[in-house]
Every structure is written in C-alpha cells, then in structure tokens.
C-alpha cells in the first residue's frame, strides 16, 4: 500500500462531542428543513464543507448518528459563533423524528469532522449543487465574499473569486434556501427537472453552457447526487478545470473508527484503494476518485 499515512488529511484533533440544544427549526422547502443547534465550540471551529454527526440522545433506534454538512454558522450580537445550521430532507428514521424537534431539545453532536473545502481561490469559482447538496455552499460563498470567517483561528480568505452557483432540484418547491444566499456577489443559476423554475433540465446543462459560452471557471466545487457529480467531474476533466467533489457516503461513526464509509481512490501507481470518506474527505480532488463501478 503506498502513501500510507498515520495522520491522513482531515484527521485533525479538533472535534468535540457535546449535547447541544435546538435553537430553531425552519422549513426551507418541501420536506426540507434547517435546524440551528447551540454549540459554540463546534461553531467556532468548523470550516465550510466540514460536517458533524447528529443523533437523538437516549435512543437505540435509530442507533447511530447521521452526518450533516455545515450550512452556516450563527453568530450572537457580538459576532461570536454560537450556533451551527444544517439542512436536511425528511427521508429516514432519524429525519422523520427531527421534524418534531423543538427549541430547547437536547441533541448529540460530534464534530467538526472531515476536511472541508480549501480556501477560496482566485479567478472564477463555480459551485454545482443538486438538491440538498447545496448546503455546503452558503458558507463557501460567505467566506469567498469576505462576509464571514470560519475556523479557529479564523482563516482569512485572501482571494475574492467571481462566484457562480448552479443549483438543480426536481421542482421549484424543492429549491431549498435560495433566499439565504447573498443577492450581491453571487451569480445564482437554477435548473429544475420539471421546468417549474429556471432552466428546464439538468444542472449540468447550466455548467456546460457556462463553460461553452463564457469564460471557463478556475475551479469547480460540486455536491449532490453521485451521477450528477460524476457528470460535473467529467466536464471539468474534459475542459481541464480543477474540481473538488464533496461525497455523501453512508457513515457509521464519522471520525474514522469504523472503516465503513470507504470510497475508491486512485493511487499514483495506477491502482486504487479504499479510503475513508470521513477522514480523508468528504472533499476530494475529482481526479482522485475512481468513478467506475462504484
């Protein structure tokens, strides 16, 4: 096994395990909600693209925590980070319970976990999101616009890229959190499968159109369903554009102990190996991913 590393990128000793309280719950779109949890230590440390594990304390069914990506950090009136926001779609055992969580309810959280997105680059950063995959991009946008700093110590985004978000959903009523994105400084382009809002078709059409008819992006970030991300990665490779992919892999622990969230990563010798998405990702350079037969 090559490049075996005892401390893979992402395995940074900064995570905390806490019982947080629900601050608020807001409906963002059909079956899509945003939860805000009070957890200052986590809020202070987390970076865009990192995630945390969430679970309802005291239950054995559902048993395990579920990973959620940071949507944004909430600050108090002094500007101190106090809360973490995340979006979720009601799809399973835990999320069906989550819709009933009320302010003050205790929630187990563990994080921040994973590597997150790199610091904003110069040039033109294009984010391509599908469905709830948009959630990491609010924090990416705010950091790139210089509106907010993340991490402890807070990292300073030196670059101010031009920003575009291509956001696809099935239908207009499933476009979550559009209002949360800044109206200034971000070029937001929408596609829906049914044509009820924006472009009628795939979100990748928007990216193709942008690449063909405008100047090529410097960097692409993508998060969403895997076939969409693969199509984005193919377009990026075809046009020689750097691309970062945020994988959403089922996880049992989220911090590297269980070895279940593995994904195929290309090695320098042409072979591939399974690597843990939670500690070596969830954000990977697109060219490192072994897409076929996943």
């Amino acid at each position, binding site marked *: *096994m090559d490049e*075996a*590393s*005892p*401390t893979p990128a992402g*395995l940074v*000793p*900064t*995570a*905390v*395990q806490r019982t947080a309280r629900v601050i608020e719950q807001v409906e963002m779109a059909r079956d899509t909600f945003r939860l805000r949890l009070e957890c200052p230590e986590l809020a202070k440390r987390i970076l865009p693209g990192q995630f945390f*594990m969430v*679970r309802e304390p005291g239950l*054995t*069914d*559902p*048993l*395990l*925590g579920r990973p959620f990506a940071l949507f944004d950090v909430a600050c108090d009136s002094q500007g101190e980070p106090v809360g973490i926001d995340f979006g979720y779609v009601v799809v399973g*055992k835990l999320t069906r319970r989550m819709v009933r969580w009320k302010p003050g309810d205790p929630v*187990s959280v*563990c994080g921040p976990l994973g590597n997150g997105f790199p610091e904003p680059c110069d040039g033109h950063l294009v984010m391509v999101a599908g469905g709830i995959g948009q959630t990491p991009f609010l924090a990416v946008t705010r950091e790139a616009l210089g509106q907010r700093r993340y991490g402890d110590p807070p990292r300073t985004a030196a670059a101010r890229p031009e920003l575009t978000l291509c956001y696809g959903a099935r239908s207009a009523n499933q476009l979550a959190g559009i209002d949360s994105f800044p109206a200034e400084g971000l070029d937001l382009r929408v596609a829906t499968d049914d044509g009820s809002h924006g472009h009628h078709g795939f979100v990748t059409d928007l990216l193709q159109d942008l690449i063909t008819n405008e100047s090529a992006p410097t960097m692409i970030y993508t998060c969403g369903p895997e076939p969409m991300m693969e199509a984005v990665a193919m377009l990026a490779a075809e046009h020689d554009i750097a691309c970062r992919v945020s994988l959403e*892999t*089922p996880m*049992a*622990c989220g*911090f*590297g*102990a*269980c*070895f*279940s*969230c*593995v*994904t195929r990563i290309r090695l320098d010798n042409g072979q591939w*190996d*399974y690597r843990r998405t939670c*500690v070596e990702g969830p954000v990977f350079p697109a060219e490192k991913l072994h897409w076929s037969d996943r």
Partner: protein
Amino acid sequence: MTRVPRLAVVLNRLQLASPILVASGTFGYAREMADFTDFSSLGAVIPKTVTARPRIGNPPPRTVETASGLLNAIGLDNDGLAVFITEHLPYLVELPTAIIANIAGHSLEEFQQMAETLDATQGLSGLELNISCPNVSGGIDFGTNPTMAGQVVERVRQATSLPVIAKLTPNVTDIVAVAQAVADAGADAVSLVNTFHGMVIDWRRRRPVLGNTTGGLSGPAIKPLALCATWKVANAVEIPVIGIGGIATIDDVMEFLVAGATAVQIGTASFYDPGLASRLVSDLQTCLRDLGLDSVGDVIGTLELPESSAAARS
C-alpha cells in the same frame, strides 16, 4: 470514610487497571478517538484486527443500521502487520493504557508467525486472537471448531510470552465447548461474543444491502444473547471471561459483571458515543461506591439464581 473502589482486574497473566476495554474494530487505531476519550481511564485499547498481509476489505456498503443494531461487513480492511508495526504501534504503545493487539491469521502457521513478530516488539500487553470474524472467506474458520481453536491458542502460546485472549464467535452450537478448548490450550482469557451472522435485504431491488451480502450484527440488539453466552461460559470454564455485545450503559456493564465477566469491551456504542468508554469507568466507580463495595471483584459472578430455577438446571 469514603474509599475509592478498586477497579483493577487480573485475567491470569494480564493485569488491567480497569475492567472497561474497547473492542477491536470499533476504536480504529485509537488515534481516531483521541479527541473524545481519556485513554488513561481504560483497562485496555484493542486496535483494529491486523492480518499478516494487507487486506483491501469488502466492497461498500459495509454497514447498515438495523433495529437497535448495526450490521457490518468491513472485511478486515487493514494495511497488514508490517505497516501496523511501523505506523500504528509506536503511537499506540505511548498511550497511557494497556494495548492488546488483535490478530487474525489464515492458518496456524500464520497465527504463529504473527505472534512471533509481535513478541519481538515493545510495549504490548497482550494478544487477542480473532478466530471469529464472520466476514472473511478463504481462511480456516478456527472459531467454530473446538479442536482447531485450541490448536491456534497452543501455537500462539509457543510463539510468545504475551498473555493470550481468544475472541470467540457466537455462531456455533456450543460456545462453551470452544471456550473450554481454548482454556485447556492455555488461553489467559476468552472474550465473547463477536458479531452474529445477519442480513438485510432491499426487497424492492431484490438485493442484499451489504456489499458482502451478509454481515455481523452488533449493538444493543444483541446484548441479551451476548449476556447469556457470557454467563454460560463464565460458569463452565476456569479462565476469566471478557464480555462483549451491545454494552452501552453502566447497567449493561454491571449485568455482564454480575453474570461472571471479569471485564467488558465497549464496541458499537463507541461509534455513536465515542466518549462512552471513559465515562463508563467513572460511572463504574460511582456505582461501586454507592453499593459500598471496595472492589469491582465484589460484583463479578455474583448472580443469584432462585432456588426453583437452580434446581431446574441441575
């Protein structure tokens, strides 16, 4: 006068500061848990199973949650013994707790060679023999055959002076027979149980959910099964028993100790509550103090059977 109850336990040649251990395969190589755990409180850390050669592991999905349980088929994904010794062992042996390496061999020779290799390293407190992983094909299923299980222990005992624990599978007709065989062969202790064979099907797609088709079930769902196996073995064999299976609360710990376990391992619960094992150590202190006991030994094997059921069993 309030005395601090003694937590130290002795498992033949293996002496541990506390009866709370963490189970192999649920604690990574300990580094992963450093943010959440006070290692010094633990009786021992047992890192993920190491095999002689690197293993790529099973295709994903490798885990699926079930009712109060977790079904897994990781497939002993690891970088092999050489990498374990150069990359993981130096970190592990510096931790303020006992380290028990967990090894799995494909043959008697491989078990013996791995034990010899690890015997030459510094800082290990013992070896746990994984003769019970349900997710690996190709090797001999040592754990389901008492004679074979005994032979593995015998060969490892010849290869090393380290204390030896045999980790047993519950997927047998008579776990007591396997435990007896490894005890006769010189094991210092037995740890039980490993996971139960299980399966989850996505019936709409007519496909198994796990990449490996079947897996091993763990978590609170298996606790009564594990407790029963622990009780049976503890009653039947002379060597100490380390109870494993769905332990997640101090009451679970106490149940296993009362049933006859000298120590316990925390497994799946570390995935959803990574700080649990160290918290259970202080919970145990408190529990023993509240009971007015001097030592954890005062609890071990204290199960009392009502006259009627004792008579029915004899």
